[in-house]
């Protein structure tokens, strides 16, 4: 067997680093951070804990930008694809940051508070995103502040998440709908953003608060028992079972939201935004390829980068792939020519020289998530 060692070199650490190490987590370099990929229980056990009970993810590596000022809504509306004026105060939506070619610079969440907006972006794209959207900021009466390195973020996910969070907060959790948030006290920490969002398909909350409160928050969430610390490994298999896109795998700056099946986060009629002209052109010319979900009945482990064939012709590579822990079958995503992108169609994946048959299916793979 060959095992490769990765040696972290000048990586950032989140304020929860010492908890991960004390728990025996395997730490790996990820987006410039030293992050836990799994704890001793293993990825499968962590995955199952989130589906059945509750898991706690440190996702403090994510980037957060605060936008303030009279032009804040118009600015974010210009640099993202979804309808920001349509967001209510206390509401969150999924969106995309495009370039002039209409391809993804990043995907993101946009939060609307009463006097500002918050954009949550991928850690790997944080610096690039800031430079990209910063180019447009001067046209709007607003200020753009990167608070990524000051902000801790924990995701408590799973059917038991509410039961675990309720005793340590004065926030009425039942009053928070899916993709809504409130600001309140959790574990004695004031002004925590309590957001009913997640990347797992289960009910749960994402909690944003200052780095300085990290120990108090982690200890309070873990104190009652029943919470499994979860790493990036299970985060990836959980999101893939739900068919949720991952930047760098499913989407990047070579594909548009129309190709990625994310047309629903693009509001073409909202007025001009970065990338709109390119998407108008693409709609007129027709979308040539589309991201599809596939599964297989064969014994195979489709991994990112494996060659894909459709009607015996090369059709790119597997974008995301895993052996679904919940379903026990190989699942994944890839781009297919548009006429092949229909449920029931057959494709082939080349795994170490052998072709394995897979079938296009309608996502999500896992259809029993407890999210609201």
């Amino acid at each position, binding site marked *: *067997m060959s095992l490769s060692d990765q040696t972290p070199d000048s990586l950032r650490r989140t304020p929860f680093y010492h908890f991960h190490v004390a728990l025996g987590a*395997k730490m790996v370099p990820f987006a410039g951070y030293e992050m836990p990929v799994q704890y001793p229980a293993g990825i499968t056990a962590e995955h199952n804990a989130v589906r059945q009970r509750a898991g706690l993810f440190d996702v403090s590596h994510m980037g957060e930008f605060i936008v303030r000022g009279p032009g804040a809504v118009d600015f974010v509306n210009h640099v993202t694809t979804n309808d920001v004026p349509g967001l209510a105060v206390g509401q969150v939506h999924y969106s995309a940051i495009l370039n002039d070619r209409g391809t993804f610079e990043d995907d993101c969440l946009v939060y609307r508070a009463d006097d500002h907006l918050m954009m949550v972006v991928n850690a790997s794209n944080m610096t690039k995103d800031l430079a990209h959207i910063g180019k447009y900021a001067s046209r709007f009466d607003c200020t753009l502040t990167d608070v990524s390195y000051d902000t801790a973020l924990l995701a408590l996910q799973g059917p038991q998440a509410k039961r675990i969070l309720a005793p340590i907060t004065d926030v009425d959790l039942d009053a928070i709908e899916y993709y809504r948030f409130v600001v309140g006290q959790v574990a004695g920490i004031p002004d925590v953003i309590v957001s009913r969002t997640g990347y797992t398909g289960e009910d749960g909350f994402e909690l944003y608060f200052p780095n300085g409160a990290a120990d108090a928050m982690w200890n309070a969430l873990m104190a009652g028992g029943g919470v499994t610390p979860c790493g990036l*490994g299970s985060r990836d298999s959980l999101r893939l079972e739900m068919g949720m896109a991952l930047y760098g795998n499913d989407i990047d700056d070579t594909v548009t939201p129309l190709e990625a099946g994310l047309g629903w986060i693009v509001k073409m009629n909202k007025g001009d935004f970065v990338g709109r002209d390119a998407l108008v052109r693409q709609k007129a010319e027709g979308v040539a390829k589309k991201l599809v979900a596939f599964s297989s009945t064969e014994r195979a482990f489709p991994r990112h980068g494996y060659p894909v064939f459709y009607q015996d012709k090369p059709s790119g590579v597997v974008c995301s792939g895993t052996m679904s822990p919940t379903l026990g079958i190989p699942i994944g995503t890839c781009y297919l020519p548009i006429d092949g992108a229909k449920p029931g169609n057959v494709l082939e994946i080349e795994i170490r020289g052998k072709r394995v048959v897979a079938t296009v299916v309608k996502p999500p793979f896992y259809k029993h998530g407890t999210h609201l």
Partner: protein
Amino acid sequence: MANIPSDLSYTADHEYVKATDDPNVVVIGVTDYAQDQLGDVVYLDLPKVGAHIDAHGTFGTIEAVKAVSELYSPIAGEVIEVNARLDGEPALVNSDPYGEGWMIRVRMSDPSQRSTLMDSAGYAKHIGQ
């Protein structure tokens, strides 16, 4: 700390060789260190009974959640038994790599090849333990 039993022989590629009552027959699997590094094993491709394997040649693959790895044979010989339980319970490689997680039983074509393998002290040093 990885478990490194003193009565086994080891390769640099993290396979172990265990003696049996028959001096020409050994059991092969992967080490505790290897299973820990790989994480959850989801399935294995192992040779069929009767297959001939070469020293340093591949005898199969091990698919874990995080990565896939080739399995390299420590010695040459004929596969006389394959651990059928691993088909349905691949996680035995994680939970009991030296016991129920064994992979193949091999009749060696040249038992002297065993002298090329590391002992437990050598393997411990190899993995920096």
